[in-house]
């Protein structure tokens, strides 16, 4: 029985299934937010997670990974992220209901009220500070900061992991070359974040929680933050072991385990398997199908969206050409991550375009 549960969970946390489940989970949470953010659902979820956690702590593999000192913060983060997502969405649901009835939302009810900084704000801050200090001191007494063997440049540990907050990017290295995963993506994340206030022109939802007044913005940000960032950090920390191979939460880390790499480039698919011809010697010709695909993705999808989707047409009218182009480019780049992941899992696609001579692989 116990083994059956463990095997089942191991299977569920295979990267393909895991990624798929997180997306479905987010979609369901937003779609059925009224029922799912209800306190009863929240308590049930909490109880379920605590029960699962306690059950899992009896498993040596799970325990050793979760209680590794540098991994404890990630467990804490996961709890906080889930709790605050619930809190934010709960307030959004309540506000949306109030506003639908034509009443003031929770924030608006109190926003005309001005209270004195001393004592109201100062005491709140003081209490937060004291609690935070207490938590930090207890944490520091219970858990020693890790210190491994002295640095030995000749001995590479396996797995070699970046600091935990970069593990989402390291996970991307599975699907993209370092110049994309390590340089282009982080830069675009920063640029994209900075562009948000200039691309989201919807004046509603400023200063209060709401979902219905800005569903696309919230869903989009949650997708980026919860799925592509937080959940990949969790995946990279707990489920990636030696050789960056994948291990289920109850599956012991085996150093000798190597997943066979059977990935194939698009050029191979097109010329060799599709046309039955040898790969062209000319590199440009060889990569032409991939180049065409990428150009099409960036050049054809925007107009296609415009002509088929009312939502995107209204964005275009609101934003004007230049902002709309920036918005759609960022959106397409973000979406290229899950697309490439799915292509890897389904048809073992390695590169869409590959010029290894110039380190230019996509």
């Amino acid at each position: 029985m116990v083994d059956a549960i463990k095997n089942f969970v191991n299977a569920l946390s295979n990267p393909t299934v895991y990624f798929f489940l997180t997306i479905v989970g987010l979609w369901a949470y937003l779609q059925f937010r009224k029922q799912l953010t209800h306190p009863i659902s929240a308590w049930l979820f909490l109880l379920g997670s605590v029960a699962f956690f306690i059950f899992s702590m009896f498993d040596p593999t799970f325990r050793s990974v979760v209680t590794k000192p540098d991994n404890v913060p990630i467990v804490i983060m996961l709890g906080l992220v889930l709790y605050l997502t619930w809190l934010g969405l709960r307030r959004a649901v309540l506000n949306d209901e109030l506003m639908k009835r034509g009443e003031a939302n929770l924030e608006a009810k109190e926003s005309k009220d001005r209270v004195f900084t001393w004592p109201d704000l100062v005491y709140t801050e003081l209490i937060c500070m004291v609690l935070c200090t207490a938590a930090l001191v207890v944490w520091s007494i219970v858990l020693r900061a890790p210190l491994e063997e002295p640095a030995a440049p000749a001995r590479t540990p396996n797995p070699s992991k970046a600091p935990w907050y970069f593990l989402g990017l390291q996970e991307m290295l599975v699907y993209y070359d370092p110049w994309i995963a390590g340089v282009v993506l982080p830069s675009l994340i920063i640029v994209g974040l900075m562009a948000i206030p200039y691309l989201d022109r919807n004046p509603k939802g400023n200063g209060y929680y709401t979902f219905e007044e800005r569903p696309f913005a919230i869903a989009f940000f949650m997708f980026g933050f919860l799925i592509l960032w937080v959940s990949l950090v969790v995946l990279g920390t707990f489920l990636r072991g030696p050789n960056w191979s994948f291990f289920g939460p109850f599956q012991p880390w085996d150093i000798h385990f190597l997943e066979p790499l059977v990935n194939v480039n698009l050029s191979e698919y097109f010329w060799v398997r599709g046309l039955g011809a040898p790969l062209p010697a000319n590199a440009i010709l060889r990569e032409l199908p991939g180049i065409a695909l990428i150009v099409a993705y960036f050049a054809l999808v925007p107009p296609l969206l415009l002509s088929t989707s009312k939502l995107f047409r209204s964005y275009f009218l609101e934003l004007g050409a230049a902002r709309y182009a920036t918005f759609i480019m960022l959106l397409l780049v973000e979406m290229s991550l899950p697309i490439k992941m799915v292509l890897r899992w389904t048809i073992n696609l390695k590169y869409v375009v590959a010029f290894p001579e110039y380190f230019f692989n996509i």
Partner: protein
Amino acid sequence: MPDLLTSLRKTQVWKSIFRHGPPNTTRNRTLVVLTNFFLHLHPVKVRKSGIRLSYTWCMGGLTFFLFLVETITGLLLMFYYRPTAEFAFQDIMALREHVALGLMREMHRWGAHAMVITVWLHMYRVFLTGSYKPPREFNWNVGVILLVLTLLLSFTGYLLPWDQLAIWAVTVGTNMARATPFLGHEGPGAALLQLGGVNLVHAGDDVRFALLSGRFVGEATLLRFYVLHCVGFPLVAATLMAVHFWRVRKDGGISGPL
């Protein structure tokens, strides 16, 4: 006890510091904020909705508080730590074994992790309440830079214990720089930058070399990261935090429905 406080309030010393009576009247509650250098970060009155924990989650405030904790514990750590390949690891060991109440390394490390978490959650809250919308666009951008700085602070600090965890995490993290387009020696386009058949960008002069001050994570990297971690980034971060807080006030205080 209250008598003691009352008589204390009458002394010249007390009056020279606090230029108003106890903060239990409207007038004095105003003065306490206006005449105190630290409290004047705040306005005298604030929106009731804006200071609710269920609204702000206190995550911005906690991020700032953790920054202060890091500054203080970091300062204490600097008394014991020498950033050289010879001493760095030993000093951390000694700190662990011999220094009484040697809790500051733990507090510094866990505080740093906590700060990364709170800054993400702060950004998440600001997004969910739409607080980046006009007039707060610019402050959101200051925030994004602060987020990057927080990660850089944490990353440069990760190297300092000089153990296996440290150098390999930093090696993995900086390996990407090799692949920077045009500027890294394994980046796309770098091979095109040639002069008379000689590659201009190679392992001895690309961006990774500039970051690490060497081809590998070594002693020069340690010194470089140490200086950035203890002086460079904190100064920039503190300055930007001042701007950030000032703008929160100038943009009309913590956001709320108009």
